[in-house]
């Protein structure tokens, strides 16, 4: 019963929006706005075929590799910079500079340096996704409670054990907040990295459809991106709920008091 209710809340608005779209395109002749029926038809035709292997999977693969690499670099770098005072003083102004550079302008540069390769596309994704994770991790590491830190220290929990048992769990709420931002950035950068001089991928395909006036096909590609974003968000929320169970529980207790 509860599951049905949840499902109802999840689906109510999408169903309403599709109905609205269906009604407003009844008898419409605008070439650029397809009807729901034609879009669904094209969707299956376009994406459940060889394109799934040649465009969707490579894009998703690059996205995953890029985001995971950005998370690893961000967390490892963040723990280091957050723990070592002189490193932080040295790097912080530079980090602000690099963070301010919009990653899309790096695409031409990276093409020159790396060619039109998967590595280049992954590098574009990393160059944008690493910042929220890195900066949030630094903040999280710096915010480790002093008493908790003293407690760990008196019990000889130092070095790697300190990182594993104290620093990482303590910073996990901030780290995950950074990861959440990275995921949506990653999707955007995945598309952008494929729009310049590319020959496959979701971003490339959508631009191709648009240029060849295959309008319903173009829209169906946008729907694929939306669905991809939604599934990433659901997976993330599930992971976050499990990792931060203690944090949410503690907050609930504090708010009730």
């Amino acid at each position, binding site marked *: 019963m509860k599951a049905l209710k949840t499902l109802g809340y999840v689906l109510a608005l999408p169903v309403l929006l599709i109905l609205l779209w269906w009604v407003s395109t009844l008898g419409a002749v605008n070439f650029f706005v397809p009807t729901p029926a034609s879009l669904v038809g094209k969707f299956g035709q376009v994406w459940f075929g060889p394109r799934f292997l040649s465009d969707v999977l490579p894009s998703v693969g690059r996205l995953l590799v890029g985001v995971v690499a950005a998370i690893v670099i961000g967390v490892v770098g963040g723990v280091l910079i957050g723990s070592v005072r002189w490193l932080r003083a040295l790097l912080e102004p530079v980090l602000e500079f690099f963070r301010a550079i919009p990653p899309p302008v790096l695409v031409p540069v990276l093409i020159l340096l790396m060619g039109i390769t998967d590595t280049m596309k992954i590098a574009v994704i990393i160059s944008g996704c690493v910042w929220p994770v890195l900066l949030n991790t630094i903040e999280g590491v710096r915010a480790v409670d002093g008493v908790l830190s003293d407690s760990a220290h008196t*019990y000889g929990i130092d070095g790697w054990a300190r990182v594993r048992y104290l620093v990482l769990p303590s910073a996990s709420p901030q780290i995950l907040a950074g990861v959440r931002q990275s995921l949506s950035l990653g999707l955007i950068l995945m598309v952008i990295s494929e729009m310049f001089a590319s020959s496959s991928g979701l971003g490339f395909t959508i631009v191709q459809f648009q240029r060849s006036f295959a309008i319903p096909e173009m829209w169906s590609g946008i729907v694929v991106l939306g669905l991809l974003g939604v599934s990433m968000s659901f997976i993330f929320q599930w992971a976050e709920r499990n990792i931060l169970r203690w944090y949410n529980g503690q907050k609930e*207790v504090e708010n009730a008091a």
Partner: protein
Amino acid sequence: MQPDPTPEAMLSVRGLKKVYQTDGGDIEAVRNLTFDLRAGELVCLVGPSGSGKTTLLKCISGLMAPTEGEVLLDGKRVSGPPKKMAVVFQEYGRSLFPWMRVRDNVELPLKNQGVPKAERDKLVDEALEAVGLAHVPRSYPWQLSGGMQQRVAIARAIAYQPEVLLMDEPFAAVDAQTRADLEDLIRTIWKKFGVTVLFVTHDIDESVYLGERVIILSSSPTVVQEDIVIDLPVDRDQLETRSLPRFTELRHHVYEQIQLAKKGHRPAAAGSPADSTAGSAAG
């Protein structure tokens, strides 16, 4: 020169001095502290607020380096947190890992030391049993009341099998009834495990009720104001012990000394002759 530590001293504080360097000038938190704890003693350290109790404890536990003097644990100089020492802090809510269940919190220091699993389990069970928490190993600390959280912190400390247990105003943040229970718990644990306890408090009644000895600190910059033996029976009871005439006498005495300390009175032997007036303005 400091007198030599008594040979059987487990914990020995020798001429300890701590000066904080701040932008507004140096602050002398502790001037010159010397005292010993014999193995298996339960000693309370009481002093007016701001008398550098926490600073002293941080120096003893190796979390902070003293400016002068030294701390000896079992004859060895303390230069970092020693393995034979456990500390229970006042802020129970901030000294346990909120992402670990009660049992994992108690077990972690042992795991980190590489104690084998079977022995670890035995020590953890024993410690949780001793503090009366054998029924909540699967709970998270924040699901427990303040008094119970402090019990978990105590269990973690005794499972670690320290030779010296330091307690920094551990019951200052719990309600009066819980506090009485926890005081009795400390006496029980002290007798059961034979550990040397240094219990820091600002509560005069608590210091007399708990201690075998009470060390009274002067106001800042801190020296030992008086070191008195509490000659109450070993078995103590919240009602009976506290209504003994001797308890009242001792309590009066400690209270008077604290009042004197607050007024800036210092024992004749304190510090060097040159600074006998300098300290009286602080506090």
